[in-house]
């Protein structure tokens, strides 16, 4: 028998859980100005984050600003996008890397072959990846649970293998010589005592060169903030309520008059658009991309970030993505034991917090009910939405 009052793991979990609950309650009761103050502090922290002093502690083995751009910033943006699909609409997508790849290749093809500028390509990449989300979703979103997961997994592989076998986009050699974003201004952070002490003196935050990672990080930060605002507004809207109902019980949602298929498609398109934007960003810094930049394991890693952080809760998802991106780099000194330790940390975190590091209250209730916290994952081939003409014999 497991006595809960003496079991140390249970006790630690209980203490952590009540601490995170009380923070969440305080947050939901906090007045508007207090929230804005917190947002402001977070943004200031994010702005000084690339400073050398912080980098020496956080990343002794790799260039910290570059690391902040990718994988950390990139994973966070990808996790925000995947969270729309998995966390909000409850659709298990195992091929999310496909949209990241489509964004990356959009940057490469339009930048190298057509000479478009980064900003034009960013726009095109978002549109193209959203379209590919709809193309993938339209035939497959009639499937549920595990079946959908398998089809999306296949899509991720198809995109990578197609890129590998298409000569126009370089096949296995990929595309090189991708242009950086155009410099917005040569303006330089003044080199005075204050900024020098932060390690930011003399940085040109809007000049996108080959060496300094900081400008790319700031650009990624802008995209992340925009994505957060966009997704948060959706979450609190009619669309967000429709997604929540689909995640919790798709049949019941349809019975409430929610056009479930349309909203699932919208979730796919929005998630894909954010993934595509990340891909364009990534391509604009990387100079060259190859198909193996977009392996299945990246889909799995981003999904792990979402689940680890607390599927459906934005701060949790961001924290999860940060940890999943940062831990393997922080422990680079362990050489070949690195991935072993990383796996061990993930296992420990999930044993300690099966519902994620920062789950939403609603998600906790869903888990308690037994839907597994990932929506109605019931493996059922449902044709619930529309009756196509061919199916009805008069």
């Amino acid at each position, binding site marked *: 028998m497991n006595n809960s009052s003496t079991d140390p793991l249970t006790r630690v979990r209980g203490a952590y859980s009540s601490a995170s609950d009380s923070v969440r309650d305080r947050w939901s009761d906090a007045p508007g100005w207090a929230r804005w103050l917190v947002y402001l502090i977070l943004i200031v922290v994010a702005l000084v984050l690339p400073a050398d002093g912080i980098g020496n502690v956080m990343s002794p083995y790799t260039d910290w600003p570059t690391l902040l751009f990718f994988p950390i910033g990139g994973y966070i943006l990808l996790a925000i996008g995947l969270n729309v699909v998995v966390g909000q609409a409850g659709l298990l997508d195992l091929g999310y890397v496909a949209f990241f790849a489509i964004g990356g290749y959009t940057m490469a093809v339009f930048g190298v072959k057509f000479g478009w500028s980064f900003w034009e390509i960013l726009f095109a990449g978002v549109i193209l990846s959203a379209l590919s989300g709809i193309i993938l979703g339209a035939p497959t979103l009639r499937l549920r649970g595990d079946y959908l997961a398998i089809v999306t997994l296949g899509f991720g592989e198809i995109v990578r293998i197609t890129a590998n076998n298409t000569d126009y986009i370089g096949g296995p050699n990929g595309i090189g010589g991708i242009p950086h974003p155009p410099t917005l201004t040569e303006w330089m952070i003044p080199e005075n005592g204050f900024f020098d002490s932060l390690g930011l003196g003399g940085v040109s935050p809007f000049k996108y060169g080959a060496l300094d990672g900081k400008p790319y990080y700031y650009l990624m930060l802008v995209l992340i903030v925009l994505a957060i605002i966009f997704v948060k507004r959706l979450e609190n809207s009619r669309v967000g309520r429709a997604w929540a109902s689909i995640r919790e019980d798709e*049949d019941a949602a349809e*019975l409430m008059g929610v056009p479930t298929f349309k909203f699932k498609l919208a979730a796919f398109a929005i998630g894909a658009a954010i993934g595509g934007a990340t891909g364009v960003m990534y391509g604009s810094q990387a100079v060259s991309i190859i198909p193996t930049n977009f392996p299945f394991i990246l889909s799995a890693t981003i999904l792990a970030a979402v689940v680890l952080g607390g599927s459906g809760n934005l701060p949790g998802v961001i924290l999860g993505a940060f940890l999943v991106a940062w831990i393997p780099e922080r422990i680079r000194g362990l050489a070949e034991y690195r991935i072993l330790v990383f796996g061990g940390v993930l296992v420990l975190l999930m044993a300690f917090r099966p519902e994620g590091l920062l789950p939403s209250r609603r998600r906790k209730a869903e888990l*308690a*009910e037994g839907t597994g916290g990932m929506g109605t994952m019931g493996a059922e081939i449902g044709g619930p939405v529309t009756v196509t003409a061919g199916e*009805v014999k008069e």
Partner: protein
Amino acid sequence: MLLEIKDIHVHYGKIAALKGVSVDVDEGEIVTLIGANGAGKSTTLKTISGLRPLSAGRIVFAGRDISKVAGHKRVLMGIGQAPEGRGIFPGMTVTENLFMGAYARKGNVAKDLKEVFDLFPRLAERKDQAGGTMSGGEQQMLAIGRALMTQPKVLLLDEPSMGLAPKLIQQIFSIIEEINRRGTTVLLVEQNAQQALQIAHRAYVLETGSVVKSAEARALLDDPQVRAAYLGGGAAPAI
């Protein structure tokens, strides 16, 4: 007729779940479908509300053929369903669940909310509690209340007594009668034939995907065959 189901066939893959079921529901009635497990009762309801596609036959609602209308559009036309196994939204509070019932329509929601709380005072007491943390009976009340929030012309109830204590079953059935008295037509699917036949006007008996009998509910209560098969009386020991 408010709702006419004409010879519908439904398949799960190659297995026929319904082999030509015809049911009529007139305005103001309580009609019940009784039958054993797997007879096709729930499938019939799901087909009416649009969760299952039909392979043949027609469903006519208020004079309009809705066989090809998507499920979420049938809600606005006036078909409300409380799903089987209390398919409520577990992570939403009672109030949020009820508001989902009014998701698709415009108009005065507050008045309907008050009516539901009137009918189920228990839900008013628990209005900020997460649906998934409530008892079985409360979840059933919530499922019915949520269906009422869609302002249905016909209310489809799928096994409302499933898994409930006898006293609660009594309570739920008297509320169903009350809902009917207030003007909502009810199509009730039940394994608890005794209770269902007592409140219904007419009844259909389903066996392996076909209607084998239909009559006034009262008449079926006295029918020796039905008594033997579904009411636990008569000579045969079958339940």
